[in-house]
């Protein structure tokens, strides 16, 4: 694999009133990624798949017209 020129870092920018004791250590750590691929994989893992896609897909499939079997399939009974 090609060498990565620099690590990729990301820190959240919180205002004081958003900071809490429980989150302080996390804020200081931020996120560091060794490679672009790692960064994009993290992004993929944290990108939720909208459930509406599956619902719409099931409806679209159910609404799809079903064609009759071809003649050879009817004759052969398969």
């Amino acid at each position, binding site marked *: 694999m090609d060498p990565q020129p620099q690590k990729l870092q*990301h820190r*959240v920018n919180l205002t004081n009133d958003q900071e809490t004791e429980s989150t302080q250590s996390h804020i200081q750590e931020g996120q560091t990624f060794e490679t672009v691929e790692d960064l994009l994989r993290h992004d993929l893992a944290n990108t939720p798949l909208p459930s509406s896609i599956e619902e719409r897909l099931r409806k679209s499939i159910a609404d*799809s017209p079903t064609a009759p079997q071809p003649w050879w399939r009817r004759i052969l009974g398969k």
Partner: protein
Amino acid sequence: MARPAYPTPEMDTPSHGQSHPDGEPSDLSAFDAIYEEHAKPIYYLALRMLGNASQAEDAAHDVLLKAYRNQHQFRGESGVRTWLYRITINHCQNLLKSWHHRTMINNLEPGFLESSPGDTESPLRVLENTELGERIQTTLQALPDEYRLLLLLVADQQLSYEEMGELTNQSGDAVRGKLHRARKAFSAAFHRTE
């Protein structure tokens, strides 16, 4: 020898009585397995290519429906993921070329560029991932189209360089060389978004 259409254990036991336009039996349970494994990467690829969650949702639906209707055309010369990505890339590239997309994307507010966070995440984690997602989208959009696509494909560990070359009409060696430059360009652009 061609591999079977979908290498899942259920594929030889059609269970829902649907059929394709040409009369081939379709297997919804096999397609469920396809959905489970591939829907999220398809959606993510569309999201980062189009930069718009709503359009990516439409694109993922359209791609998967097209795949369902045309699953008999899959001959197994390439992997299922490669086949699905080819449909996704063509679909998104057509959208990007269309007048509709150019008009719609220019009228959207910045918030529309990101997908909705999951309900179970902590507020800090949601903020962190949302900000990171925005930076990634901004960075990707600053890159040439080819670099953007190659980086999105190489992040998928299921694809080989040869398969990436197949999807982008070039050799695996050409992909390797361009990826080196694409990574550098991404890193430089990412640091500029800080």
